[in-house]
């Protein structure tokens, strides 16, 4: 008996009238897997790095996210606390378990409760890092791993992302290039989230509502740590 796999692949090959790619074809296909080439990249994001950061910010705001720039890591806790206060949110945050975030001077805010790990249901505010920011559409790239529980990006109603200007790139393809540098060619972490604004739906009479299932609010704190560190 032929297996389901052979049945499907056999039918595909029969329809394509071949038994796998010929030599030239095979080379093209193999190369496409081992050495992916970027296609057409829109001009929009081909800018000097400071202008890419501006574009990133403008696109985020267009997506109903909010942005605050700070000049050093140590200013992040103040920015977080300010954000919580102005939105009348509880002074309690769930931090991604990354050294970069845990080492920040949170203890300067005695009323702020911090804990870290994957999100749990009552958590209202998460604070995570990012892997990259793609200026083209204001898209944040985050990936799973010991320092990045995926649930933090979706379960709490408020998601605060700490992004460094050195992490801002122009196009998605530059994000993939950086990811391959870290993980190796053809290797991916379990989850990569490309996040463009807070959760939304238009499923009721096409009226856009924020906060369908994921975060209602997305706030990005941009640390100006200089140029592209790629």
């Amino acid at each position: 008996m032929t297996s389901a796999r052979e049945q499907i692949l056999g039918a595909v090959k029969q329809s394509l009238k071949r038994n796998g790619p010929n030599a030239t074809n095979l080379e093209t296909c193999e190369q496409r897997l081992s050495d992916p080439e970027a296609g057409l990249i829109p001009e929009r994001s081909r800018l000097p790095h400071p202008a890419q950061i501006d574009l990133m910010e403008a696109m985020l705001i267009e997506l109903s996210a909010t942005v605050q720039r700070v000049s050093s890591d140590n200013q992040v806790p103040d920015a977080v606390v300010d954000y919580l206060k102005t939105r009348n949110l509880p002074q309690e945050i769930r931090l991604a378990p990354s050294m970069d975030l845990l080492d920040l001077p949170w203890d300067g805010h005695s009323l702020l409760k911090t804990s870290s790990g994957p999100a749990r249901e009552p958590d209202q505010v998460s604070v995570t890092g990012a892997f990259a920011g793609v200026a083209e559409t204001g898209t944040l790239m985050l990936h799973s791993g010991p320092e990045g529980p995926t649930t933090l990006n979706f379960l709490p109603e408020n998601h605060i992302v700490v992004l460094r200007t050195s992490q801002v790139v122009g196009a998605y393809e530059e994000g993939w290039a950086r990811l391959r540098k870290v993980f190796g060619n053809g290797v991916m972490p379990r989850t990569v989230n490309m996040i463009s604004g807070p959760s939304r739906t238009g499923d009721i009479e096409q009226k856009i509502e924020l906060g369908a299932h994921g975060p209602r609010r997305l706030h990005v704190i941009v640390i100006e740590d200089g140029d592209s560190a790629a």
Partner: protein
Amino acid sequence: MQSTSHNFKDNARRAIADPNIQAAMAKMKVGFTGKRLAAAARLPEFEALRDAARDIKNHSLANLDFYLERYEDKVKETGGHVHWAPTAEDARKAILDICRRVDAKTVTKGKSMISEEIALNDHLEQAGIKVVETDLGEYIIQLRKEPPSHIIAPAVHVSKEQVEADFRAQHQHLPAGRSLSEPTDLVNEARQILRQRYLDADVGITGANFLIAETGTSIIVTNEGNGDLTQSLPRVHIVIASIEKVVPNLEDASTILRVLARSATGQEFSAYTTLSTGPRRPEDPDGPEEYHVILLDNGRSSMLGSEFQDMLRCIRCGACMNHCPVYHAVGGHSYGWVYPGPMGSVLTPNLIGVEEAGHLPNASTFCGRCESVCPVRIPLPKMMRHWREREFERHLTPKSVRGGLGIWAFLARRPALYQRLTGLGIGVLGILGRRRGRFKSLPFAGGWTKYRDLPAPQGKTFQQLWAKQQKTRSTTK
């Protein structure tokens, strides 16, 4: 899902008489089209990206055997499982087997048209598993026990008043006096109800917009975040995807993503594009312990190499139906199966047979708007014409139509006779209609004049006018 495509005409008649559907369609036909146009205008490379997206899909389909095998290797390498499913039944069985093995009581689902295609919910429910749709639109139609009427906006036919009534009937544990008159209230209530379901679920099932051969990754594109909660909280993540979803690498997916959301909702990029590769890693603090991919064929392999191969480029954006005057008039349910609008009129006969779905490729005016907005440039009208030809060849076309076409073909092959008869007909109609200028009814054309008047001809055929004009031109030169 049980098809009612053979009832297209009755379905359409009912939809045209339904004020709710008509109000919803009036709204959607301006909303989606305007947003797509604005998004396309904002990106100068949009047309070139459409060409690039078409070429990537063509390359992937021409080498589908290769990329499917390499994709499978990669999934296995990362600790995931691939289940090949030649038919809908095979897919249902594979999914139920996984659910039974892990003793699943509750399954949450992100929106998946493939799941509708294989009628998964009924199958799981019959086995005693609670199935919860989490996309808001899908949740609404699950409560209403209806199929989706649009591939990206499944509840586009439902008014907010209807949603309110459904929520009051289904969520009886909530206070009766609560306000539910605005979409915001309804979205919040669904959010609150579904939150607990995500946490209770043992298995999360999502579809896939792309499969990446380079890395063994599946990609979902959503706006609500429901797909992400569905796939990151339960112990098991099952992806259902059809075989034509595979593309070579991340760069290829990026190019297609640039035209997907813009064509679908007019967004620059959807809120969440999520790439999943294998189960959680030993050092990961969350994520599913098992990752399964169901690869469904269900008739697609036989479309390859046929005149319908281009249809496999479809990335399910919905632009064709958003721009279709027939869809706007009759809504998605009239088409009678999972895929409505122009893409459905081509795909459905391929998947469930032209005997069942033969009306669909005929439900088109061939105005060409669908093809003009398709992000991967699928020649939809041409393929609907292929179906009409096949129907004619296989004697599936109704007798009256065959008879009419036979008479027309007889005359068209005899130009002198054709010209004499049409000249006579137009002349007579011209004289008869001179006074009123229009006909309210005509013998043999009652079906046509039932809905509109025929303007009376001016007494000459087009060919006569043309000949006359050519003559005047040559004399005035």
